């Protein structure tokens, strides 16, 4: 009953959003549903023109999860790496972001605006540009990173030189991690410095009266007051990093041997191989993983709002 009443009351509003709703349905909803349908077929380039792929049921999902012989990746290890990648990034993003925000918020600091503008720069450059520049900087023979290491080695003799950054496993992970840390911390810094400015100063004064030192003030005043702003930002950062196609694809392409592959880049490679059905199934799996995470996220953010 209530729904019916709501509907009749807001009929005019629905008419206003109708045009954009139609556009959304055509360019977003339809392809999404089409992708879901593709996940259950043997869709390949041949079927783009002559539609009628065969229905294969859950075969694509089974093939992916049990690593059918024609797939050269193991789903669970890609998923595992994806989580390691996400958490490693978030730890650095948040700690670096908060630390820099605290530094910038030092009362009476000169040139605050300049520092802030410079530190935001990594965020302002299109990610694929940054990624490609970093890829070249990691070149073994001619890259800036190795050339720099060579120079520093004169002062610090135990530094490694001629490091094969992108061709060997842990190195390639450190390389992509470094790139993404560099690109990701400004966002956390912005959120944190915004939240820091809104902490009322009388809280610190009260803490001073109670004889709290700077360390104590940080943990009992700053951290709890930052939490409501940081938790949603961290959740958002989780999803962005989890699905961060640009850095992985442009810097390592998942090499060596697919060890730095994350789920989205692996799904993209399936599309490249013309296995559209399997790629859609893969995308659907990623969707469900992120859906589960988003539901948890909603719970958690609601909880922080109530505090």
């Amino acid at each position, binding site marked *: 009953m209530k729904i019916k009443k709501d509907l009749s009351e807001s009929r005019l509003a629905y008419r206003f959003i109708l045009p954009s709703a139609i556009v959304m349905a055509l360019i977003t909803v339809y392809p999404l549903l089409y992708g879901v349908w593709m996940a259950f077929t043997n869709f390949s380039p041949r079927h783009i023109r002559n539609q009628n792929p065969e229905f294969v049921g859950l075969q694509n999902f089974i093939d992916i999860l049990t690593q059918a012989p024609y797939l*050269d990746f193991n789903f669970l290890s890609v998923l595992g790496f994806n989580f390691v990648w996400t958490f490693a990034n978030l730890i650095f993003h948040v700690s670096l972001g908060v630390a820099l925000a605290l530094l910038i918020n030092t009362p009476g600091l000169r040139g605050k605006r300049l520092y802030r503008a410079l530190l935001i720069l990594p965020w302002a450059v299109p990610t694929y540009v940054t990624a490609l520049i970093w890829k070249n900087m990691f070149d073994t023979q001619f890259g800036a990173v190795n050339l720099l290491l060579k120079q520093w080695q004169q002062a610090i003799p135990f530094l490694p030189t001629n490091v094969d950054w992108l061709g060997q496993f842990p190195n390639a992970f450190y390389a992509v991690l470094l790139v993404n840390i560099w690109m990701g911390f400004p966002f956390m810094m912005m959120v944190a410095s915004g939240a820091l400015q809104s902490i009322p100063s009388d809280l610190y004064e009260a803490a001073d009266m109670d004889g709290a030192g700077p360390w104590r003030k940080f943990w009992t005043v700053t951290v709890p007051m930052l939490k409501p702003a940081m938790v949603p930002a961290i959740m958002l950062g989780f999803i962005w990093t989890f699905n961060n196609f640009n850095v992985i694809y442009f810097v390592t392409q998942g090499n060596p041997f697919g060890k730095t592959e994350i789920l989205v880049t692996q799904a993209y490679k399936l599309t490249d*191989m013309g*296995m559209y059905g399997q790629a859609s199934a893969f995308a659907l799996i990623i969707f469900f993983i992120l859906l589960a995470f988003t539901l948890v996220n909603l719970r958690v953010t609601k909880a922080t709002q109530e505090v």
Partner: protein
Amino acid sequence: MLTQRRRFSCLAPKGTGSARASARLWRTAAAVTLLATILSGCNPAGSTKTITLWHPWGGAELAALKDAIKAYQADHPGTEVIALQVPSDRLQDKYLRSAAANGGPDLLIGATDWIGKFAQSEVVASLDDQIPEPQLQRYQNVALSALRYKGHLYALPESLETVALYYNKALLPAGPPKTIDGLFIQANSRDYWKGEYLLAYNTQFYFSAGYLFGSGGKLLDAGGQAQVDSPGAVRWLTLLKNMREHPRFAVKSDYGYADALFREKKAAMTINGPWAIGDYQQVLGDDLGVAPLPMVEDMVPAVPFVGIKCLMFNPNSTGERRERALDFANFFTAAPNMTRMLTQAGHVPAIKGVTIPEDSPLAAFERQAKWGTPLPPDPEMKEVWTPMDKAVEEVLTGVNPPAKAIANAQKLIQAKIEAVRKQ
């Protein structure tokens, strides 16, 4: 004050005639510009005819292509050739997807091994009865027969491609080695050569396959089944491993790495295709030499892939568009333009009339091609490249010994072939 100002304001439009005229001129110009902008969309379709072309060429090859297009447009006023450069490792997939979705260019510069996959996916037009007999007579028979798949002609040949040994005469006074044994003897002694590395070798499968076939290895059998696991393949991977472990060789599956070392005169030799000759000549000048690949052993030559760069036609472009594309292809593969591509871009012509001068470094590619093996057109070839590259990488980085790596590749290729057949 007041009257003066009023007088001034009413005088202005009448008095300064030139200002009025220029204002009118400005208004007319604005109207014309706006109308022209609006109406340019209504340009009748016939007045500028276009031919779209996708190609993988860069460097000296791109410059030669641009000159060719300029020459064609000068001969055909009103026709515009729109060329889009796509990186060579992306071109096949991009074209396959676009053409399958009823799009894509009129014309594609492609390679022999794409033909089977394209024919199967119906994204390449058959040229049976489309090319006049005199034009067909122009092409070398070897080249034409390589572009037939299941009895139909699918492309027009442009140039022959294979890999050979480039060397820097200044760094290698002893001259290039005849055999692999000779290569290692040179590597072990600094008497024969100068520089940091003797050989910079990009071991991607296309570039190293010469030693697979030279050692007796195979890829596919007649029925399109994987046949890569063989003693010859193990010998091939072992050779690559030995090269990698030798400090005088720079061995890596990376085109840019080998290319840069040779250009910067840090490596005395490299293995690359004829497309690089223009760029290498620019850097090394007369010091550049080209020789056939070192033989596997005496009298057993390396057998690299011989591919044919060819012009393919999109089945989605029909009627007048097809006619124009055919006309451009006719122009492009005629003797004057083939001479241009030979001299500017180092293309080994696939037509009978144009020959490479004996003293040209390109002659080595022609000789090498005689020992080569044609790049198979089978659709299964698309599944071969990645697993073979992976096998090379596994051996070079020591993840797997040669026998294990090639056995893995065999399994992966066969499974991929079967999966694709089921689609």
